[in-house]
C-alpha cells in the first residue's frame, strides 16, 4: 500500500522552490493527492540556453489545419447565427403537410417555438370534436422532443385529466429524425384508434376494453361537456 505521507514529503522536496505549494494547508489526504508525484524529478542536464529566437507563429499543425481550410471551396462562407434548433423548426413547420383535419395556430407568429394544434377528426368515435394541443419546443430540439399537452379536459384512454398524452414518440421513442409532422400524425391517430393497453385515463381505458357501447356513449357525453363518474369534461364540439 502506498503511504500517502511519504508521497507528500517527497513531493515537497521536488517542488522545493514552490513555496506556495509547501504552505498549502492540506488536511484531507486521499489517494487523489497522487497528483503530487506528477511533477517530473529534477534532471541532471543543464538548462537550455535562454536566447532562442522568438516565434510568433502558432504551431505548424495549426498552420496546416488552416491550409486545409483554404483548399476548400471558397464559397463556404461565414454562416449566420441562426441556431440549429431554430432552422430545424423552420424546416419542420414550413414543410408541414397537414390534412384538413389538423391546423396550427401561433398566438405570437414571431414565436415559432410555442403554438397550438387543433385536431378535428372526420371519422371514428371522436368525430365532431375539436381537440387542442399545446406544443412547446425548447432550444435543444430535435435532441429533445417537443412538449405536447392537451389543453382541454377530455375523455380519452391515452390522455389524462391534466392533459398529459401517452404517445411513445413524445417520450421513450423520440428520435431526432422524427419531426413535428410525425408527432401531429401520431396525435391524430390516437383519436382514430385509442389504445386501451397504454392507459392514462384508467377509467376510460377500462370502459373501452370491457364495455365498448358504454365507452362510445361516454365519449359522446364527454364531448358535449357532460360529466362521467363525477368528472366534468370540456365541451369540444365543433361549433
Amino acid at each position, binding site marked *: 500500500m502506498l503511504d500517502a505521507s511519504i508521497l507528500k514529503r517527497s513531493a515537497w522536496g521536488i517542488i522545493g522552490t*514552490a513555496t506556495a505549494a509547501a504552505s498549502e494547508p492540506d488536511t484531507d489526504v486521499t489517494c487523489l493527492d497522487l497528483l503530487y508525484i506528477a511533477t517530473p524529478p529534477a534532471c541532471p542536464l543543464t538548462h537550455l540556453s535562454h536566447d532562442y529566437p522568438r516565434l510568433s507563429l502558432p504551431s505548424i499543425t495549426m498552420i496546416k489545419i488552416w491550409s486545409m*481550410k483554404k483548399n476548400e471551396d471558397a464559397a463556404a462562407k461565414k454562416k449566420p447565427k441562426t441556431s440549429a434548433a431554430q*432552422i430545424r423548426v423552420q424546416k419542420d413547420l414550413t414543410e408541414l403537410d397537414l390534412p384538413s383535419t389538423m391546423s396550427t395556430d401561433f398566438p405570437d407568429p414571431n414565436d415559432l417555438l410555442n403554438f397550438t394544434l387543433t385536431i378535428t377528426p372526420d371519422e371514428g368515435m371522436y368525430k365532431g370534436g375539436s381537440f387542442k394541443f399545446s406544443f412547446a419546443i425548447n432550444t435543444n430540439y430535435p435532441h429533445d422532443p417537443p412538449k405536447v399537452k392537451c389543453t382541454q379536459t377530455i375523455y380519452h384512454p391515452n390522455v389524462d385529466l*391534466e392533459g398529459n398524452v401517452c404517445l411513445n414518440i413524445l417520450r421513450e421513442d423520440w428520435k431526432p429524425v422524427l419531426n413535428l409532422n410525425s408527432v401531429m400524425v401520431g396525435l391524430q391517430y390516437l383519436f382514430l384508434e385509442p389504445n386501451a393497453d397504454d392507459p392514462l385515463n384508467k377509467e376510460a381505458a377500462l370502459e373501452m376494453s370491457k364495455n365498448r357501447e358504454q365507452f362510445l356513449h361516454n365519449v359522446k357525453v364527454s364531448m358535449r361537456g357532460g360529466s362521467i363518474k363525477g368528472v366534468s369534461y370540456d365541451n369540444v364540439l365543433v361549433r
Partner: protein
Amino acid sequence: MATQVSETQDWPGRYYHIDQVLNTPGPRTDPDFLAGDGVKNFLRNQAKILVIGAGGLGCEILANLALTGFKDIHVIDMDTIDISNLNRQFLFRPKDVGKPKATVAAEFIMKRVPGVTVTPYFGKIQDKDEDYYLQFNLVICGLDSVEARRWMNATLVNMVDPENPESLKPMIDGGTEGFKGQARVILPTITSCYECSLDMLNKPTAFPICTIANTPRLPEHCIEWASVLEWPRVYGDKKMDTDDPEHIGWLYKVAAARAAEFKIEGVTWSLTQGVVKNIIPAIASTNAIIAAACCNEAFKIATSSAAYLNNYFMLIGTDGVYSYTFEHEKRDDCPVCGGQALEMTLKPETTVEQLIEILVEKQDIQIKKPSLSTPTKQIYFQAPPQLEKATRGNLEKKVSELVPPGGEMIVTATTLPFSLSLRISYAT
C-alpha cells in the same frame, strides 16, 4: 517582461521528460516539425487554451495541461462545488463546498504548479461572445450536457471567417458515461462537427408515461411520476429547479409515498436527484483516461510533435476494454456545418418575391417552394397557412428593407438536405 518571469520559474530540468519529445523529431513526426526552442516557447509562452467545464473531466484536464507545460489556461464553469463532487474532482476540498468550481480549480492549479496562470470565469459559456473565444488557440471541452456542447460547437463553427486563419479554433471534446468515454478532435468547418454526430447519441432513458401513471415497477418510475405528473399538477407552470434542495425534497417525499403504495423499494434522496437531473454515475478513472486523451491531442496540435487524432476515439469499458478510433464523416445535411452557402448580390429594388424566383430558377441548387428567414425574423414561410398569411405581405417588400447589406438569410425547402444560407449584398 511576462515571459521572463515564467522562465525564472522553469527550474533546470522542469520539463525534462516533455522536452524529450520536443527537442528532436521522431520517426512519425510531421516533417515540418521544428524541434527545439521555438516550439517550446510557443507552448509555454504563447499558447492560450480554454477549458470548458471544471468538473470531473475539467479537473483532470486542467491538471494535465498545467503539467504538460501550457501556462496560459482559462476555464469556464457555471457550477458550484457539491459535496458529491469530492470523490473525483480532486482540485476541491470539503472547505470549498458551495464555492464556484472555476475559481477554486484555478486557484488550486496556480498554487500547485508554479508559473501557470489559470483565469477562471464563473458563469455560462453563453455569456461570452466571439471576441472572447477568438483570443484562444485551442478549446477543450469537458462538458456534461448535449445542449452546452451543441452551443459551443455551433459558436466555433460560425466563428470561422475565411479571411482570418486565426478564427479557426480546434475543439477537443471529451465525454464520459460510466465506463464509456469518447475523445474527439473537431476542426470547425473542416472535419465533422458535434452536430454531425448528434444522431449517434444514446437517447436518455425515458419511461412510457402510461407505465409511470399506472404500473410503476421501478423506483425510477415513482420519481418520474413525481416530477413529470405530480409537479405540474400541484404547482402548475412553476418551474422545477433541480438544483433547489427544497424541490428535490418535495419530489423525494412524493416519490417515496408512491413507492410505498406500490411496495417498490429503492427510492432515495440521491436517486431522486440522479433521475431528475439525469445524472449518469461518473467514474474517476474513466474521466482520467478521457481527459488524458484530450490533453495529449491539445499538446500534439499545439506543438506538431506527433499526428493528432483523426477524429473520433471511443472507449468502451463496459465489456472488457475495447477502444476504436475512426474518422467520423462530415454530414452534408448538418444544420451547423453542412449545407450550402451562397453569396447573392441583389439590386436594391429586388423584392422578396423576385428573390424567390431567382432561387427557384437557379439550376445549381434545385430548390422548390423555399421559405426564408433572417436570424431575427420570418421573411416568407410557405406553410403552415397562418404563417404563410402572416408573411405574405413581405413578398412585395424590397429585400433591402428587411435584410441589411452583408446580412444573412436562411432558406429551407423540402428539396434541400437541410438548409441554405444566403449572404446578401446590394449592387450600387
